[in-house]
C-alpha cells in the first residue's frame, strides 16, 4: 500500500487512523522525556493515583471471583478485602493531593479545560464508587449508611432511580458501571495530558510569558 493511499485511504478506519496519528503522534503518546519542571514530587500524584486504581481493580476482581462467603470468612479473603479498602484509601488520597496541586497551578490553562473537567468528573465518579462500595460491605455499617443515605437521596428526588436500599442495584453500580466510567475517564484524561502536555508552573509575577518557555528547552528523562 502506497503512502498516499495510507494517508488518504477511504473508509472510517482510515479516517480514525489519520485522526489518531494527527492527535497522538507516537513520540507524544509515549514520550521518553518531559520538561524539566516535571522533576518535582508535585507531579508524582497523578501516576500514583492510576497505580492505586489498578490495585483497586485487581483486588476487586479477586473479590468478585471468590464472593462474600470467602472474603468474610477466610484469612486470605480478609487480606484481599483489606487490600481493596486501603488501595481505595490511597487512590482517593493521591487523587485529592493531585487535585490540590493542579488547582493551585491553574492546570486548565493552555487549552487544558477538558483535561481538568475529565479529572473533576472522574473524582465525582470515584466518590460514587466509594459510596456504593460502603453499601455492598454486607455488614451493619453498610445497612446504617444505606438507611441514612436514602433520606438524603430521596430529598433531592433521585431515590427512585438510585435506590441505596436495593443491594443488587448498588452492587452493579459498584462493580460494573462506576469502574467502567472511571476507567474510561482516566484513559481520556491521560490521553489529553499526552496531547496537550503537562501543565507548566504559573509564571512569576514580573513575567508576562509562562515560566517554562525557557525550561522546556531542557528536558528531564522519565
Amino acid at each position, binding site marked *: 500500500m502506497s503512502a498516499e493511499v495510507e494517508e488518504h485511504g477511504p473508509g472510517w478506519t482510515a479516517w480514525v487512523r489519520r485522526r489518531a496519528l494527527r492527535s497522538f503522534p507516537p513520540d507524544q503518546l509515549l514520550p521518553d*522525556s518531559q520538561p*524539566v519542571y516535571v*522533576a*518535582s*514530587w*508535585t507531579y*508524582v*500524584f497523578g501516576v500514583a493515583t492510576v497505580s492505586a486504581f489498578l490495585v483497586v481493580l485487581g483486588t476487586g476482581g479477586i473479590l468478585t471471583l471468590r464472593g462474600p462467603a470467602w472474603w468474610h470468612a477466610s484469612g486470605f479473603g480478609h487480606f484481599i478485602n483489606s487490600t481493596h479498602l486501603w488501595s481505595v484509601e490511597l487512590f482517593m*488520597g493521591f487523587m*485529592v*493531593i493531585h487535585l*490540590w*496541586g493542579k488547582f493551585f497551578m491553574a492546570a486548565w490553562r493552555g487549552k487544558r479545560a477538558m483535561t481538568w473537567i475529565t479529572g473533576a468528573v472522574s473524582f465525582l465518579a470515584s466518590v460514587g464508587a466509594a459510596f456504593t462500595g460502603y453499601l455492598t460491605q454486607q455488614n451493619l455499617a453498610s445497612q446504617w449508611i444505606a438507611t441514612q443515605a436514602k433520606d438524603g437521596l430521596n430529598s433531592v428526588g433521585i431515590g427512585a432511580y438510585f435506590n441505596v436500599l436495593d443491594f443488587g442495584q448498588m452492587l452493579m453500580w459498584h462493580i460494573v458501571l462506576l469502574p467502567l466510567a472511571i476507567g474510561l475517564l482516566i484513559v481520556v484524561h491521560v490521553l489529553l495530558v499526552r496531547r496537550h502536555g503537562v501543565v507548566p508552573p504559573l509564571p512569576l509575577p514580573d513575567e508576562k510569558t509562562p515560566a517554562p518557555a525557557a525550561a522546556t528547552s*531542557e*528536558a*528531564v*528523562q522519565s
Partner: protein
Amino acid sequence: MQLGAQFVQAVNLNHPGRYVHWGVIQISVANLVVIAVMIAIFVLAILLPFPGRRRK
C-alpha cells in the same frame, strides 16, 4: 514489640469514633488525622527536592 503494640493502640479504630466539634463543623478525629497527613504530604511534595534529575 512494645512499640508495635503502642502503634496498634494509637490507630485502633475498633471503638466508637471520637469527634471534634467546631461550630457547625463536626469531624471524626480519624478523618481529621487523614486530612492533616494529606496536607503534610502535599507540603513536603512542594518543598522536598526531586531525586535523580537527569537532564539531556
